[in-house]
């Protein structure tokens, strides 16, 4: 094979790459914060909530978990405007990631809630707390702690999956890569380099989430 690798374009195009990285980080931060909040609400419904709310939440969770993220993204970006909901590329990407992570984190958090010892609910009740107060103050934090590693993995999966938002022209890291390879015709180098960047982002994200876990949950709980 007679191919000369060339990374010289990096000197020219690094602003695009930095911008792409910033967008990818913005996307995952919004998705993680809002998506996990959605997941907590849905998990409460599925584990402890009123019966009439369960079918719609179950439908949402099953529908999202059994369809590709790319199709969810296309549906939101291309499918909703004819109905009058027009979103920018970035808004659509944010919304799709929130919706996606919301469904997955719902199931993870639900498992955490259901692993709560019965005595915790009873102790809350015996102190005259309502079921919701018990959930909010007694059950939720240890439940999140129990499943924090699984939740962290899911956040990373969603971050890596976000590479496809370049398909609706949201200007994330993979969009920057596409742009560069179309200008330089150095496709392999460009994708190789951004693959490495994604790997670094994934490793950093794992580290941040582990750190965050130790800050939010300073004590160990029985699993």
């Amino acid at each position, binding site marked *: *094979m007679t*191919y000369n690798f060339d990374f010289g374009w990096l000197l020219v195009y690094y602003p695009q790459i930095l911008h792409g990285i910033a967008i990818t980080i913005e996307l995952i931060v919004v998705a993680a914060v809002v998506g996990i909040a959605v997941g907590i609400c849905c998990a409460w419904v599925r584990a402890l909530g009123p019966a009439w709310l369960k079918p719609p939440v179950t439908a949402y969770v*099953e*529908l999202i*978990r*059994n*369809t*590709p*993220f*790319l*199709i*969810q993204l*296309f*549906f939101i970006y*291309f*499918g*909703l*405007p*004819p*109905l009058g909901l027009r979103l920018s590329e970035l808004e659509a990407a944010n919304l799709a990631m929130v919706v996606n992570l919301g469904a997955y984190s719902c199931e993870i958090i639900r498992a955490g809630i259901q692993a709560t010892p019965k005595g915790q609910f009873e102790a809350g009740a015996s102190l005259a707390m309502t079921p919701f107060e018990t959930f909010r103050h007694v059950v939720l934090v240890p439940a999140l702690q129990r499943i924090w590693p699984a939740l962290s993995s899911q956040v*990373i999966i969603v971050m*890596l*999956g*976000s*590479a*496809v938002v370049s*398909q609706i022209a949201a200007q994330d890291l*993979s969009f920057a*890569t596409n742009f560069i390879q179309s200008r330089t015709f150095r*496709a*392999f180098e460009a*994708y*190789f380099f*951004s*693959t490495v960047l*994604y*790997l670094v982002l*994934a*490793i950093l994200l794992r580290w941040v989430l582990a750190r965050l876990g130790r800050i939010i949950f300073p004590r160990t709980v029985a699993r």
Partner: protein
Amino acid sequence: MSDFTIWDIVRNLLLATRWTVVLSLAAFVGGGVLGAILLFLRIGKRRLLRNFVKYYVELFQGTPLLMQLFLAFFGLGLFGIDVPAWVAAGAALTLWTAAFLTEIWRGCVESIARGQWEASSSLAMGYVQQMRHVILPQALRVAIPPTVGFLVQVIKGTAVTSIIGFVELSKAGTEVTNATFEPFTVYGIVALIYFAMCWPLSKASQSLERRLNVAHRNQ
């Protein structure tokens, strides 16, 4: 707006679904075989090979599937071969599937091994005998539910291959949309077709898992 009936749309999408199914099965079977080989290296005695598989798994789990597809597509091209999209898609998905299955199966083997290793060691069995007669038969049972569950991830993963130009269900969705200008209907139907393939598998995985847990409790 267009001359396309719903049936036209559905028919076109279902025809393309064949390729989603073929690619999914090919990646699942190919990834399964490669994953099994990697599993034996991962739990084997050779440290170098163990580490090799460990980093292989981390690499494929730590980078976007989309980037893996692009690298396969353009990387194979470096060898001067003009790679058709289906070759790149099949190759990347197989490697990706192998990484995940290896990791899933390793978890199963270790969950069994923890309790059983000492028992079988005390029966004076060798490593291979222990694996063959004690660990693997049990690990296989535990492995079935998450393996079926991962098939759902593979099917959903094939959607990404549309981006490098492989014409399967998602790509067909985009093409039909461009012809009909009815993205809501078309992507809605595409989503339902994926759902129809994935949801039964998800449910099967869950019920297998439940049955396994019941069986374990009765032991």
